[in-house]
């Protein structure tokens, strides 16, 4: 018998039934919800008169549309307040545990899942948010869904899905100094385009991926959707188990032992075949930055900006960003630095930034926001004195939320301004109408804050 991929092992174990000539009924182990994509689904089940089927498998937080300053005060924006209040009421009425504002577990949904031990290998997880792929770093199948699908999970703990094809992306070898997880994923997306993964579920493998920390693996899986893939995943290993052990929702005692035995079966068999397989060498990857208006428009920071050559999307992007084709991006003055989002707001990201800015000051032209992924990350940063280092460097440490990644709240980059951002999307106006986003790693963002310009992080290494 031919070998089976990690993806197939987990997917097939969750099929309740196949619809004739149609999709499969896929059982969902954990459903994460937030205030923006859930209210219409709650209204939906109420209209149908059906209960929320498995509230104990549903976890809620408020993150997308919350202020990142003065979270102890009532929300000022009336529409945002209505949305967050609706989540509170809905969770209360349907028996869902809510880690809302003021709760010690509050934070970005994809940061708190792993942090609390909710995310576990072998599970199926969904959330009305495309970056649900983050959780795949633990060897589970996790993907983003629409609100109608949220309603499906509310009412039946299942969704109807057509099984995606499988792809493996291998990255092997030693990364160069100054290059990290964010650079790996920006590099991959720049090579295979924003649609290169569409229709596929991706397994990331290879020695470079294995060498990443759990947080680095989360950064890689997080941006799977930016190449169009339904999700990304990485086989669990000792690092995964070490990260999970002792977390509040992780299995305990004998339960841990039996779960561990199961997790150890979660890998792609040596003779398994993927529908598509691509390989990259880590040595080819430099510190990456995006120059355009989709995440695939990325280059190594010391490469020249591309020429449009008749490509309307590139021409439009360069015009929007006001960049000159063929020129270098290094030295370009920027206005904002945003360190945060489900891609890069974890403690290791904050430590990396602190390491670079320690004893330095941000440039005068820069406004620097650093928004931790969760209350726990925020507390940890305070315990380690990272808050002081950042404050002395002129960074503003905010309270947890999605913040300027999607600029639903008041954390907006003004029109025409440039922001080096550790988030995941650089679409036109993503960080506020007319804003210009350059996606990069926390290290590249930190050095831009210090110099006020696009800078090669390798200059700071010695």
């Amino acid at each position, binding site marked *: 018998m031919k070998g089976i991929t990690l993806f197939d092992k987990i997917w097939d174990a969750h099929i*309740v*039934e196949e619809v004739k*000539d*149609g*999709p499969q*009924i896929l*059982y969902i182990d954990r459903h994460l919800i937030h205030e*923006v*994509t859930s*209210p*219409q689904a709650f209204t*939906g089940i109420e209209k*149908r008169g*059906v209960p929320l089927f498995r509230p104990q498998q549903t976890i809620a937080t408020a993150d997308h*549309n919350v202020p990142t300053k003065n979270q102890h005060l009532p929300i000022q*924006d009336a*529409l*945002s307040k*209505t*949305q967050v209040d*609706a989540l509170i009421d809905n969770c209360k009425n349907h028996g869902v545990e809510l880690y809302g504002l003021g709760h010690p577990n509050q934070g970005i949904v994809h940061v708190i899942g792993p942090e609390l031990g909710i995310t576990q290998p072998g599970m199926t997880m969904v959330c*009305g*948010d*495309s970056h649900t792929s983050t959780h795949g770093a633990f060897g589970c199948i996790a993907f*983003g*869904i*629409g*609100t*109608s*699908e949220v309603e*499906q999970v509310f*009412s*039946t703990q*299942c*969704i*109807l899905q*057509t099984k*995606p094809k499988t792809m493996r992306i291998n990255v092997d070898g030693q990364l160069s100094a100054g290059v990290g997880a964010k650079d790996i994923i920006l590099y991959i997306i720049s090579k295979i385009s*924003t*649609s290169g993964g*569409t*229709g596929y579920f991706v397994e990331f493998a290879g020695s470079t991926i294995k060498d990443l920390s759990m947080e680095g693996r989360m950064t890689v899986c997080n941006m799977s*959707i*930016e190449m*169009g893939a*339904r999700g990304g995943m990485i086989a669990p290993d000792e690092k995964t188990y070490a990260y999970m052990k002792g977390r509040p929702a992780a299995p305990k005692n004998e339960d841990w032992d039996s779960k561990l035995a199961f997790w150890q079966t979660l890998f792609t068999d040596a003779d398994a075949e993927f529908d598509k397989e691509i390989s990259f060498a880590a040595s080819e990857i430099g510190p990456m930055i995006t120059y355009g208006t*989709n995440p695939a428009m990325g280059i190594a920071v010391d490469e020249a900006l591309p020429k449009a050559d008749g490509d*309307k*999307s590139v021409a*439009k992007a360069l015009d929007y960003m006001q960049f000159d084709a063929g020129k270098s991006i290094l030295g370009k003055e920027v206005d904002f630095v945003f360190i945060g989002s489900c891609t890069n707001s974890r403690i290791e990201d904050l430590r990396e930034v602190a390491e670079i800015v320690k004893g330095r000051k941000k440039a005068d032209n820069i406004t620097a926001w650093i928004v931790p992924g969760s209350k726990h990350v925020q507390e940890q940063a305070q315990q380690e004195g990272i808050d002081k280092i950042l404050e002395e460097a002129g960074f503003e440490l905010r309270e947890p939320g999605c913040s300027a990644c*999607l*600029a*639903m709240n008041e954390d907006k980059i003004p*029109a025409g301004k440039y922001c080096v951002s550790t988030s995941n*999307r650089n*679409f*036109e*106006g993503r960080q506020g*109408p*007319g804003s210009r986003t350059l996606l990069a790693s926390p290290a590249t963002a930190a050095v831009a804050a210090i110099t006020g310009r696009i800078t090669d992080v390798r200059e700071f290494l010695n």
Partner: protein
Amino acid sequence: MEAFKTIISKAAPLTLENVDTDQVIPARFLKSTTRDGFGENLFRDWRFNADGSVKEDFILNKVSDATILLAGKNFGCGSSREHAAWAIHDYGFKVVVSSFFADIFKNNALNNGLLPVQVSDEFLKTLFEAIEQNPETKFKVNLETQLINIEGTDKSETYAINPYKKHCMINGLDDIDFLISKMKSIEKFEQKATA
């Protein structure tokens, strides 16, 4: 969900590729707790200037009465927000034609009676050319026969759709009713999984 009937209509041509759902409906308009009214802010920052004045050049400000949106490949990439499908449908479109759709958008569209029609790159080019020659050109989208054609010509192409989804679209059925009818199997699956 509204049942899908055969459409004969003009189309609004949006030739850009990789149109993301942040353009379809920017995040700052996602604060509603209902499904209604998103059409008002469809392609907000392409349709309107910051001061609220109309951008005359944008295609939706030039074409009226089109219930078909014709878009460059990889339409609907980015955020999973179903608000994008709601906005397009609420604005009055019943069909989106492209040579490639992002996965989540495609599912969201199908779940809301908005038909995503995936054609070949060549045929998409033919469709854009037909509009360029005559903006009044009408297109017929038939779901029973899975055929899209340029009215008054013999130019047509068949498109694929999952048979189950086709049945749902034609009859205005949604997945949730179907899933609820499967509750016994789901509970049985749970018992087996925890045994």
